[in-house]
């Protein structure tokens, strides 16, 4: 395999899955390939179900990953169990791949009493410390500055731990992108900056985000490696991230990966893209859907069949249905939880405010 460090825009994005559905030299175990595909399928089904729940008014919001499943799952699969991922907000599939149970994710979607963040955040703002998954924040790009700090800390401790941080191309305009990349370059932090260039920051196209030739080329400004990859090719994404992971292990520092993909759905359930983009633009990207592409590869290798597809889809649907039923029935978090976790211990003024809130609720 040729090293990727120098593979930037002029040569075109890295691709492994060919048009004839073949792919050379795939060093991934068949079991893992199937698990990757299953997670992509789960994400696709979840998105569909959650959007319907939102329309029915049963959850308040959902921000999906339609069309970006390969970028999300391929990257998560290339990381090691001791590594960390810092999500943006579309990467629930990465958290699920790393072992976060479906129930925990749905508890957050309903903001119920079992939600790991106790109903304090919006839907799709999950936290998964147990699976080395950071905490989602809505302000765009803030995690990009935090991830290299964590990576640098791991390096200073001598741990073989790398950090994968996700963001969209819109986030590259934020100051936090700049400072995160610069610090990672100066301190040679074992950090992988994974940009899902999905074409759209809500209504603003990627071409209005920057005048640079690509996102990957921005790596030059920070002295880190820059790689552009076909984000709908799950095998190429896996390889790009795995190689970046190897660079981290070898002490060669950070990599900026630009995964070229497309946001097939709206920004979130609060958005309607018909106001700013034409269906003709979306069509070719529907044709490049990462799921059938990966499925065809698995099928020609004999790793997947129509029967598998049918069986797994049914499994997934019933898992989702069961988990939603449980999560929806759980009540809201207790009033007390409103005043917990502001500090390690509740200070006098919050104790007072808690008692006041309790009294008001009882009297009200």
């Amino acid at each position: 395999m040729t090293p990727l460090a120098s593979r930037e825009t002029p040569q075109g994005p890295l691709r492994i899955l060919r048009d004839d559905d073949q792919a050379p030299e795939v060093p991934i175990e068949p079991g893992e390939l199937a698990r990757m595909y299953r997670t992509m399928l789960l994400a696709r089904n979840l998105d569909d179900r959650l959007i319907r729940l939102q329309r029915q008014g049963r959850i308040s919001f959902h921000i999906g990953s339609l069309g970006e499943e390969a970028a999300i799952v391929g990257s998560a699969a290339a990381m090691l169990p001791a590594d960390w991922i810092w999500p943006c907000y579309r990467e629930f599939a990465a958290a699920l791949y790393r072992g976060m149970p479906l129930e925990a994710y749905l508890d957050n979607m309903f903001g119920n009493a079992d939600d790991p963040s106790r109903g304090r955040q919006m839907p799709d703002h999950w936290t998964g410390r147990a699976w080395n998954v950071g905490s989602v924040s809505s302000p765009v790009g803030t995690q990009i500055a935090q991830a290299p700090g964590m990576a640098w800390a791991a390096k200073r401790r001598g741990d073989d731990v790398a950090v994968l941080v996700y963001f969209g191309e819109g986030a590259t305009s934020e100051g936090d992108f700049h400072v995160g990349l610069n610090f990672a370059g100066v301190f040679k932090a074992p950090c992988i900056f994974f940009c899902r260039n999905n074409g759209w920051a809500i209504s603003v196209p990627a071409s209005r985000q920057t005048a640079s030739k690509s996102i990957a080329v921005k790596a030059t400004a920070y002295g880190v490696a820059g790689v552009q990859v076909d984000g709908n090719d799950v095998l190429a994404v896996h390889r790009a991230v795995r190689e970046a992971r190897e660079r981290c292990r070898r002490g060669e520092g950070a990599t900026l990966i630009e995964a070229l993909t497309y946001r097939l759905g709206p920004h979130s359930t609060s958005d309607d893209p018909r106001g700013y983009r034409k269906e003709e633009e979306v069509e070719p990207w529907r044709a490049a859907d990462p799921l059938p592409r990966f499925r065809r590869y698995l099928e020609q290798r004999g790793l997947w069949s129509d029967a598998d597809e049918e069986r797994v889809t049914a499994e997934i649907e019933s898992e989702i249905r069961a988990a939603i039923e449980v999560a929806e029935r759980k009540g809201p978090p207790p009033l007390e939880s409103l005043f917990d976790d502001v500090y390690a211990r509740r200070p006098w003024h919050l104790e007072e405010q808690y008692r006041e809130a309790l009294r008001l609720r009882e009297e009200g």
Partner: protein
Amino acid sequence: MAVMNIIQAVNDALRLEMRRDPSVLVMGEDVGKFGGVFRATVGLYDEFGPDRSIDTPLSEGGIIGTAIGMATYGLRPVAEIQFADYIFPAFDQIVNELAKLRYRSGGQYTAPMVIRAPCGGGIRGGHYHSQSPEAYFIHTAGLKVVMPSSPADAKGLLISSIRDPDPVVFFEPKRVYRGRPVEGRITPWDQDVPEGEHTVPLGEAALLREGRHVTLATYGAMVHESVEAARLVAKEGLEVEVIDLRTLWPVDVEALVGSVKKTGRFVVVHEAPRTCGFAAELVTLVSEKAFLHLEAPPARVTGWDTPFPCTLENDYMPMTPRIVDALRRTARF
């Protein structure tokens, strides 16, 4: 007259000012072609083109920093921060640059501009789509801070803010963007808004309800909860004077102090957390200027000193029952 909601009133104000003054422009994330995520700038792109209805890269620091340069050069930018929660990447530009430019240059350079930002909770937005950060900006000398509560005020105050020679941070209470709460439910606005030229001067509060027993000062979405609370306690014979501050800074101190001198009792209501919130300043002002008139300790009805929650947001915000409770306690003291 036309019936408008706050979003339509904001849109109307922007359109009129852009027609009146070619130096006025709007800029921000998704404000151009899309017309803003709350639709406040809808139609401006079609009428004024991409140079005056500008989609910017996703960068609050860049939006405010470059808007300062534009304003210094003589344009009149109205910059939108998509949610007030996202204003902090631009905090340095606002606090250290925008607020101080006139002063540090001996009055030679100024950057008159407006920063519009939807604020406040009540839309299940959690930590990052709900905050009310007005106190940070009120605390900063050189900025004016405005928050309307109704469509007519939104239009009149926004036009005045655009014409003001100083930078104005203009917060819009998004919970009441499209309607107002009546008996706990958001119903569409029925308020008439003057068509065409309509200004509301900065620095003047509005007296929404006269009363002899307690003065209640509030602003933004909490105006509606407060008016409702005043209506409820009126049935018990408690007459509450409700003041909508509208301009938070410089605040209409005469309206405030004059009313407290009459009632002797003072309650402030805001959504932002209590500690070092604007209520603290208002209570101090009243204590300094009307101390001998006070018959009861002034009360603050505010958000709790916790980050803004999601599921329990109605327990967090000072809704009508909490206001009623504070009014009764203050009156009984």
